């Protein structure tokens, strides 16, 4: 499975990654423009399966960190993803054979393409989350025992910071503080590991999935057909459709939290759906009963266009469809749910999976 990714594929990727971003993950618009600019300059990027690498090939994921407000104003210089990458290679004393995404949802689905294009290395069709989460340790790699550090944080001025930490919480805190000093956004190289160690701890095929979602939604077919195709492809369910009647927002501990109320129409009349979000959509309740919970994916789509609506864009009066898609099976593990389940985000609820697990992971 070798496939070349051209600039036009990046548009599909960005659209699909917004669906997998479950309302958060940062707007991939800037990331998509960066990836396209890099591909135009250096040529298309090769998308490979990790099985095509040798067991002891080094793979280094690449990502961006920071405040969305900063990213849309002080865009990256362009050198820093590669700078972080090369510096980490230098520290490890090895050259990476490929890069990969930390999250397939939102902005970070696009950043590794910048590295891959410029260095002429392939990108692995996989990611560490299968969606978007707000913190660095919230990856399958972390639970697979792969450390996020040594990690390189780089800014556009040429500064790099090497982090070596005792655990995920320290990684998160130290890298976020370095990022703020750097002006609110930075580029990361982290979670470097051999292909054979990484293989069982990635969610495979997620970039292809995102591009396929983008294609399905950009299709000229009518909206109901596109929705049907999306749900079928993602094994997802339509949770609710109706009119958005209230968005309550509050900023808490630096996160944008909120509650959305949707009044039902067409078959849901008389029912009310409530969504809780913290950047990403976390909980969907129907008439007080949870019907989908994080880490399963909850995404709000515009009724007419079937395109995803981010939590920042939610407004009164929108006609929406709420859908849910099953998360990667790894998140069903109890130790994972401790870090990405409803309780971690402050809700007195247990994870209620959309689909029972068929296989043991």
């Amino acid at each position, binding site marked *: 499975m070798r496939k070349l990714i051209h600039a036009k594929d990046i548009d599909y990727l960005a659209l699909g990654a917004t669906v997998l971003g479950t309302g958060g993950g940062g707007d991939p618009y800037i990331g998509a*423009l960066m990836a396209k600019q890099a591909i135009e300059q250096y040529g298309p990027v090769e998308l490979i399966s990790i099985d095509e690498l040798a067991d002891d090939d080094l793979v280094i994921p690449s990502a961006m960190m920071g*405040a969305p*407000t*900063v990213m849309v104003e*002080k*865009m990256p210089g362009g050198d820093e993803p590669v700078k972080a990458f090369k510096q980490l290679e230098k520290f490890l004393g090895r050259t990476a054979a490929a890069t990969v995404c930390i999250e397939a949802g939102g902005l970070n689905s696009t950043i590794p393409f910048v590295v891959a294009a410029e260095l002429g290395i392939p990108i692995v069709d996989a990611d560490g989350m299968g969606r978007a989460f707000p913190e660095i340790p919230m990856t399958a790699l972390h639970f697979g025992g792969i450390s996020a550090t040594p990690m390189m944080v780089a800014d556009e001025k040429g500064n790099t910071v090497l982090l070596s930490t005792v655990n995920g919480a320290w990684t998160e805190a130290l890298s976020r503080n370095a990022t703020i000093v750097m*002006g609110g956004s930075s580029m990361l190289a982290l979670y470097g590991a051999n292909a054979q160690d990484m293989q069982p701890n990635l969610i495979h095929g997620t970039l292809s999935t995102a591009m396929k979602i983008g294609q399905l939604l950009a299709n000229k077919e009518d909206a109901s057909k596109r929705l049907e195709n999306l749900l079928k492809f993602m094994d997802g369910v339509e949770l609710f459709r109706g009119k958005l009647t209230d968005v309550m927002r509050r900023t808490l501990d630096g996160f944008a939290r909120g509650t959305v109320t949707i009044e039902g129409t067409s078959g849901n009349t008389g029912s009310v759906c409530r969504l809780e979000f913290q950047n990403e959509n976390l909980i969907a309740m129907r008439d007080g009963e949870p019907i989908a919970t994080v880490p399963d994916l909850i995404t709000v789509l515009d009724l007419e266009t079937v395109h995803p609506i981010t939590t920042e864009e939610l407004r*009164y009066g929108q006609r929406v469809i709420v859908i849910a898609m099953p998360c990667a099976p790894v998140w069903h593990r109890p130790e994972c749910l401790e870090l990405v389940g409803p309780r971690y985000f402050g809700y007195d609820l247990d994870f209620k999976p959309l689909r029972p697990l068929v296989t043991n992971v």
Partner: protein
Amino acid sequence: MSYRLGIDVGGTNTDVVLLDSKNTVIAKAKTAVTADIVTGIRVGVGTVLDQSGVNAAEITHAMLGTTQVTNAIIERRELNEVAIVRLGAPATRAVKPLAGWPEDLRERYAKYSWIVGGGHEFDGREIALLDEDELHEIAESVKGRVQAVAITGVFSPVNTDHEERAARIFREVLGEDIPISLSYQLGSVGLLERENATVLNAAVSSVAKRATLSFQQALADLDVHAALYLAQNDGTLMSVEYALLYPILTIACGPTNSMRGAAYLTGLKNAIVVDVGGTSTDVGVLVNGFPRESFVAVDVGGVRTNFRMPDLYSIGLGGGSEVTESEDGVKVGPKSVGYRIVKEGRAFGGDTTTFTDVVVALSKAKVGTHEVRLPRELAERAYDVAIDKTVEAIDRMKTSSDAVPLILVGGGSVLLPSEFEGASEVHRPENYDVANAIGAAIAQVSGRVDRIFAMDQKSREDVLEEAKSIAIAEAIRAGAEASTIEVVEIEEVPIAYLPGNAVRIKVTVAGTLASYNQEEVGAHASH
């Protein structure tokens, strides 16, 4: 007695009203838009002068809303060559200027585009020293090649210093006549969108200048030597000098003029306004007497921008919307006969069935010169389809499910009923058909600020005061009388993930024109 002209040049009609100093409508005229725009204005103004018998010399002010700038961008007509300068290196190079632009415009503008050392961090620190040497070199290299300059600095809404210094360098080299557009004057945080708005603004500065001069000439030809003001898209006016600096702010002033007119004609400050034209209907929201602003990036001629624009929901439904029947059911619009309705619509003796004809056939309004007969079932279904579309558009624009007052304006609004689902009351004020021209004529001048402020060093009160005084200074610069300036809106939005209690503050103020005689303005009429 002194008089004012309100002129709104729309897509189909040029509307002109003449108001006396008590804001009473003395005369009104609706004429078809002419290819050269100015002829239509001359005819309209001539008509109101004839109708009223007012002496042209008594007209002290002329307020004009125009679509010239919008059309120039959409039609790619008479656009300037622009030197595009971004202050932000080494940051921001990963996405160059003009990214995401339509190919034709991108090719055209790419040759004079630079990213120069400079710009600021979110907290006001410098990213890099401003590279003044390179700016000098660029200025020398574009001399005689460009007609305008667009300068955008990273986080200039937080710190305007580098943009101002860069402007001085270009001014020094290029002289006084080249318009220089600064991004912090136009948009808010979101570099690419603000830069896009700034480049478009620079691109249309010559069109705006020519249009303004020809408007002045058209008025002078009729012996009208009034002070000329241009309507901008927040429902306020700007002086000609200001409009020449920021012509892009005239985009979408038509619907906002209608909304301001609707507020004035009804005395309502908070309401939904439905403006029905020949081809489309715009639904907007009045908040404290002014149009609500859009929060999302707005496309202008295919370019993503973030300068302030009215929050409108437009539907393809108007008096001239064609009624069609197919397997999918009855459709009304979006295809429209537009201004050709007076020839092609059945109510005018033509043979195209329009929304107007449906309303006439159902005896819900009297329009046109001919009787209209349509199958009753078709007419009823078409009517229901049209009203459902309108009800949904109104509902989308509401901020809560509470019923709100509704104001119907625009020539086509006679076609709508006087009761609506979700509306507490429906107003169709006198002179509804020229509400846009009235809105232009009665408009005030505004000032605003939209920046990120750090709250950790100063008290909230001090920061708000600072923001207010910036907005007030801006209003005075635009021509407002200081003693009449009032705060229209204050908005504070805390910014996630940033230290220093960063808060985005938006303040809008508005006041009466300084040159306008206060005592004669009188109280706003209410019906």
